[in-house]
């Protein structure tokens, strides 16, 4: 398989192989990310389609990303999610994660049950306590493993702002889960 830069160059020439490789690599991740934000499989699927359609249009126009394709795709997805959430306030991120976590096929031990309770409390705190920006930064930084710089590019803010938003988000989560932490740890 081609490396990132050569893959991008080939994709800019609308090389079918490169375009297919890009879709296969990034579409599931973009879907997951979008699903965390919008909590709707159909909307997530539509957004994936829009993201890659926009990418193709950019390539056909001789534009598009030159270096960081992953960050570019997430950025496009983020903007599309924000646009859709403006139209319909349908936003309950990470509830799907709870559902899938509950579907996990294992026999829960005591510690696993405690961990599950903790996880649910964390998800609840993320959904209720954090602002939109804080939630997005936490998702990008800790669930999608983006660097501070990449998260800043995706959201469209300065790196220092992202740092501040992340710290405040973590502090809010810690405060919201204070009781649980005192009980369990």
């Amino acid at each position, binding site marked *: 398989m081609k490396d990132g830069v050569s893959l991008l160059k080939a994709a800019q020439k609308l090389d*079918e192989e490169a375009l297919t490789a890009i879709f296969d690599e990034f579409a599931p991740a973009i879907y997951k990310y979008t699903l965390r934000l919008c909590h709707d499989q159909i909307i997530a699927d539509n957004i994936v389609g829009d993201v890659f359609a926009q990418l193709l249009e950019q390539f056909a126009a001789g534009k598009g990303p030159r270096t960081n394709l992953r960050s570019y795709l997430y950025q496009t997805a983020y903007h599309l999610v924000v646009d859709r959430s403006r139209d319909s306030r349908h936003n309950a991120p990470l509830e*799907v994660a709870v559902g899938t976590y509950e579907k996990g096929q294992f026999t829960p031990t005591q510690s696993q049950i405690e961990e599950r309770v903790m996880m649910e409390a964390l998800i609840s705190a993320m959904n209720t306590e954090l602002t939109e920006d804080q939630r997005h930064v*936490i998702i990008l930084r800790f669930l999608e493993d983006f660097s501070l710089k990449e998260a800043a590019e995706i959201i469209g803010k300065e790196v220092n702002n992202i740092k501040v938003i992340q710290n405040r988000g973590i502090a809010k989560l810690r405060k919201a889960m204070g009781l649980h932490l005192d009980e369990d740890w």
Partner: protein
Amino acid sequence: MEDDPKDQIIIDLLAKLKNATREEYPRKLLASRRNQYLNYAAHLGFGVGIGAKMMSALKGGNGKAVVQSQVKSKLLETVLAVAIVAEAGTLAYFYRDKIADLIQPTPSASPSAEEVTSPPDSSSPLPQITPTALETPTPPMATPTIILTSTPLPAGTAGNENVRENAQLTSTPNPNDNGNNGNHYGQTPKPERTKKSDKDGKPTKETKDPKKKK
């Protein structure tokens, strides 16, 4: 921040949450989306693909006869299109005057027509249609009604304008005739007296001043 053990606990929990999320892209949705994506890429890449094939054919990339014939046909098509455009451009250049005439018929005639025609148009109607010609018929139209109704005229002078004027003068009384400069003092009829009066013709006291009673 991350040195704080409580923060680290949160970060560890977030990492576990990431691994716990096992929501995958449904296969049917993924397959259909992939097909749409590739179809769209083929649609957009049609123009680009021709160029790429031409380049590869020129470089002798695959050497397949079918591809070469396709490239040749496309190349020929392009050359023909360019030739047609060039010919049309040349013809348009030679016949540019006629084309300009077609697009703008007699562009220089319209301003001259305005210059030539406008002065006579503005000057000639004014003397022809004089205000006197329009105004003179109206007073005679009004006066004959007065003439016919007020004073009978002699039969022989009915159509004469001077007679009409005289008749008009006689129909309305001259204010200087009675010597009052147009005023009509004493000409209003006296109202009839309806109330009782004494012998001298003066009104009685009751009717003269009713306020004195009170």
